[in-house]
């Protein structure tokens, strides 16, 4: 085989080393750094974009949670206000009722007292008139004068009788 003709080996080995060294130097110096840099840059850019997206997402989530919390607080406040208003209305209603009842009670009491007063006055009047009338009737029936003591005793008896009957 021609590949085993050893007198070509020295030149092949020499030029292979030289060629490979030159190619390695060129690529190492000029081709690989920019290529690797572009790849790294792209990797970093993608990673940055992903990070940013993640950041935006968490931010949006946080805002949402904030709004939800705010909404909950507002709704709770509204509920409190409503409850307070309802309580106040209830209290007013009760107060009113109490006042009305008290007023009615007072008016009734006044009326009763007035009636009692009127009744007493009427009784007094009736009693005095009755006494006079009885005396007059007695004088005419007896046609005789009575002593002052007699007068008094008779009148009292009549009055007592009257009082008893009026109380029955």
């Amino acid at each position, binding site marked *: *085989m*021609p*590949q*085993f*003709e050893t*007198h*070509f*080996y*020295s*030149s*092949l*080995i*020499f*030029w*292979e*080393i030289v*060629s*490979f060294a*030159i*190619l*390695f130097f*060129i*690529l*190492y110096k*000029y*081709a*690989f750094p*920019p*290529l*690797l*840099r*572009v*790849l790294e*840059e*792209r990797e970093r*850019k993608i990673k940055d974009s992903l990070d940013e997206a993640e950041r935006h997402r968490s931010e949006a989530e946080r805002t949402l949670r904030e709004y939800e919390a705010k909404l909950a607080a507002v709704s709770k406040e509204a509920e409190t206000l409503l409850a307070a208003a309802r309580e106040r209305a209830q209290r007013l209603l009760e107060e009113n009722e109490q006042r009305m009842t008290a007023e009615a009670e007072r008016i009734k009491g006044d009326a009763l007292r007035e009636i009692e007063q009127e009744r007493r006055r009427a009784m007094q009047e009736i009693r005095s008139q009755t006494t006079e009338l009885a005396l007059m009737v007695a004088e005419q029936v007896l046609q005789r004068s009575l002593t002052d003591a007699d007068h008094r005793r008779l009148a009292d008896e009549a009055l007592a009788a009257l009082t008893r009957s009026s109380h029955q």
Partner: protein
Amino acid sequence: MQENPLHPFELHNFIPIEVSGLDISINQAVLTMWIVVALVAVLMMMASSARRLVPGKLQSLAELLVEFIRGIILDTMGERGMKFFPLVTTLFLFILFCNLIGLVPGSYTVTSQIVVTALFAFAVYGLSLVMGVALHGAKFLGILVPPGTPAWLVPLMIPIELISQLARPISLAVRLFANMTAGHVILGVLFGLTVSGGVLIGWLPFAFTIAMNGLELGIAFIQAYIFTVLTCVYLGDAFHLHGHDEHAH
């Protein structure tokens, strides 16, 4: 008349040069190496000069290559192996373009020269040995005893492992050389048949020539890939010693 199928592998010195007894004459193989160097250098410079974040076609291809080699290195050596990235990539590109240019009719296949592949293979293997000794010192001799070997088997294992270690550069060199040579011999034979078969029957071997050329294109890639992967595996073995033995085969 049938042409000798080994004729394409013959070398002829165009320019005889001799420097202090060393013959460094220029022949087809040397010329082809220069073409390879120029081609790879120009392509890679063009690919890397754009530096766009959204890559063009050539830049995409170069980035594909970078990612490809990076994947091999990370698989076999891990993140620390990335310092070998320029060496491994240059080796891959050099071998790949030597293989590919050899497929152009009338050109010379540099990698069909055993001395060329052997130089790469022994250089890579030597590098792995040097690195292993530098990293692990005398413990690197432990590479001759696989982990888990019973003590009474050690005297047997050391010669076996020694042979398997020595076989590494030889198999690496012969694999590439034999693949490239065999492919071109087949192409030569088929083309010889085409020429001698004439118009009536010659189209059949000619069709095979085309098919074989397609196959050889695949082999050019595969052999460059295998050479690169094994380079990384050997370097990785020196890195990890027994850490990742599943990669050693």
